[in-house]
């Protein structure tokens, strides 16, 4: 009936990596779905518990949101101040327009040290720019030191959740991976034993590493202090022991003042891991003689962020502090997991950030439609990002960009019909007429290809009744 090449929206959705397709594939993996169901249920409960403890939680959300908006509204001034502060404290600041430039800078810095390996703290920004591939291409071995990133790296996969990248793997799968890669045939699946195996494997790397690469959760412009929030201690290892530290940070992570951490260090741990405070938070300012790396490089990354900044309606997505609370409550993510989003950013934040960063091209262009608009994400976002509204806004941009296909023409036709009483009632009567061949005993018996077909794969649909409400109302008036 319709050929997808004539319908840009359908063509976009038909690509194998677009969300509807990727999701269908992901749904088939019952093991991953069970893992994700278990993990997200646990973390929702923990988050709810520690948030309930905080009497001024809503005030903190408002403050966090405002601090981020304040920053974004004068981002150029904040970045200039940050640069000055970091330099005054003995660090060097680089500015990378895109992934390629960032990778070139980092590879160059590592090569300048004559190092052939780097230890890495988990960083979404480096996942985004695919730094590991660039390092490997230059003969430099990146060693992921976050347990989950290590698991994902050993498995040759991509992370599926921005906070818990190996959420899709259960303990048995991790045990099997470690048995194979660490040569430990008798390893059990006890989480403590698995963690110990990872610890021993990585300890050696920490002690010998000369160069580390990290991301940053926040960077305070007034003092030049970089903040990394973590649990395992690998962040401390990487930012303390090596001689050289390179931090790659998205420009939206800057905050105006050190003082502002009093808000974010309450919002982030409770929203992300559901703890009062995460085990370790590192706050360093440039270099400090006799303590830690004596060379510090901060690489400020744009890579599409200025594009997001340019759309006032989409801009709030840049407030994100990467807590993943939205991902954990999302009923769509719960079914599909993160790989279906084809982006380091999955779930609700992924659906609004990834398309904007990419300029609404590629597979991620389908992400704004990957939502039932239930709003659970907005309820939990610590910085009050109105994700459902931005999803609708992004849908509008997608629709405006694509020439009107079947969906567009149908909706516009419906809109015209609904513009007048006569058109509306005519559409109602037409519907009753058209359904006659496929309706019996009050239910549809066949579902023609298209939206009805998609509906009918799993659900019944009542037929249009013989009398509409308004026809009944008018007959009632006649009788009265």
């Amino acid at each position, binding site marked *: 009936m319709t050929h997808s090449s004539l319908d840009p929206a359908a063509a976009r959705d038909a690509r194998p990596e677009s969300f509807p397709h990727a999701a269908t594939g992901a749904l088939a993996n019952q093991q991953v779905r069970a893992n994700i169901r278990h*993990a997200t249920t646990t973390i929702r409960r923990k988050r709810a518990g520690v948030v309930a403890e905080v009497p*001024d939680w809503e*005030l903190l959300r408002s*403050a966090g949101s*405002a*601090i981020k908006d*304040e920053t974004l*509204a*004068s*981002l*150029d001034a904040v970045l*200039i101040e940050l640069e000055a502060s970091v330099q005054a*404290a*003995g660090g060097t600041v680089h*500015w990378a*327009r895109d992934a390629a430039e960032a990778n070139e800078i980092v590879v160059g810095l590592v090569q300048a040290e004559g190092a052939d390996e780097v230890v890495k703290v988990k960083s979404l920004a480096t996942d985004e720019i695919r730094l590991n591939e660039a390092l490997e291409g230059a003969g430099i071995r990146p060693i992921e030191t*976050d*347990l*989950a990133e290590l*698991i994902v790296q050993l498995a040759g996969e991509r992370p599926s959740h921005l906070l*818990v990248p190996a*959420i899709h793997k259960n303990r048995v799968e*991790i045990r099997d991976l470690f048995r194979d890669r660490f040569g430990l045939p008798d390893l059990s699946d006890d*989480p*403590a034993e*698995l*963690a110990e195996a990872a*610890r021993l494997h*990585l*300890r050696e790397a920490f*002690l010998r590493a000369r160069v580390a690469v990290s991301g940053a959760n926040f960077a305070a412009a007034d*003092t030049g*202090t970089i903040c990394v929030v973590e*649990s*395992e*201690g*690998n962040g401390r*290892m990487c930012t*303390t*022991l090596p001689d050289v530290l390179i931090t790659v940070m998205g*420009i939206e992570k800057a905050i105006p003042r*050190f*003082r502002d951490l*009093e*808000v974010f*260090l309450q919002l982030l741990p409770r929203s992300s891991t559901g*703890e*009062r*405070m995460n*085990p*370790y*938070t*590192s*706050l*360093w*300012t*440039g270099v*400090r003689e006799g*303590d*830690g790396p004596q060379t510090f490089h901060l690489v400020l990354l744009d890579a599409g962020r200025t594009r997001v900044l340019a759309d006032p309606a989409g801009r709030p997505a840049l407030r994100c502090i990467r807590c993943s609370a939205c991902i954990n409550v999302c009923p769509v993510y719960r079914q599909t997991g993160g790989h279906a989003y084809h982006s380091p950013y999955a779930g609700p934040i992924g659906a609004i950030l990834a398309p904007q960063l990419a300029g609404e091209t590629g597979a991620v262009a389908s992400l704004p439609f990957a939502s039932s608009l239930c709003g659970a994400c907005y309820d939990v976002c610590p910085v009050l990002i109105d994700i459902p509204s931005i999803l609708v806004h992004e849908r509008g941009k997608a629709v405006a960009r694509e020439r009107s296909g079947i969906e567009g023409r149908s909706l516009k036709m419906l809109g015209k019909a609904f513009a007048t009483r006569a058109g509306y009632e005519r559409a109602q009567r037409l519907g009753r007429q058209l359904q006659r061949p496929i309706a019996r005993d009050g239910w549809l018996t066949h579902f023609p290809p298209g939206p009805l077909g998609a509906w009918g794969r799993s659900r019944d649909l009542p037929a249009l009744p013989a009398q509409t409400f308004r026809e009944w109302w008018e007959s009632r008036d006649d009788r009265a």
Partner: protein
Amino acid sequence: MTTGREAILARVRASLADDPPHVVPPRNYRLRGERDRAAVIELFVERVRDYEATVVVADDPGAAVASALEAAGVRRVGIAPDLDRRLRPSGVELIEDHGLGSRDLDALDGAVTTCASACAETGTIAIDGGPGQGRRALSLVPDLHVCVVRAGAIVETVPELIAALEPSAREGRPIVLVSGPSATSDIELTRVEGVHGPRRLVVIVAT
């Protein structure tokens, strides 16, 4: 040729052409706690215990340090060169950290330090390299960290903690916030103690 810096700043300015309003963040959240001193200390002890760290309240911190090290069965312990004499127990080999290499630190059984500040609500200890605290590596690499917290340095809330630490940040001191021993929740979201940071944390509250 435009530099990355020039290009990015130009893009930022162009992106803000809609002239968004300048926001002044509301500071009507709690800026300080309301508990009295005794309650603050009690809360701190409770919260640190929640993280599976050992907490001792002692009016003789030196003795408490000695007990803790003995209980842990350690023999070689690292300390900052300026650690107060009263916190240096006999009976263990104390090695002053004058720039020990990573592997030397790794060969130690533990470390004893003081701290700059602490937060009761979150059970957090803050280290900023001040007197008795040493370099960051000292309280990171050895597997046991014994930390003496002066009761008077414990504040109730996070905003008070950050306010207490701000002068250190302005001085360029690196700061580490420690809330329990290291842990991961990466395996089925079960919190597992002991990955890379010290797997044992003993906190001594000196009253």
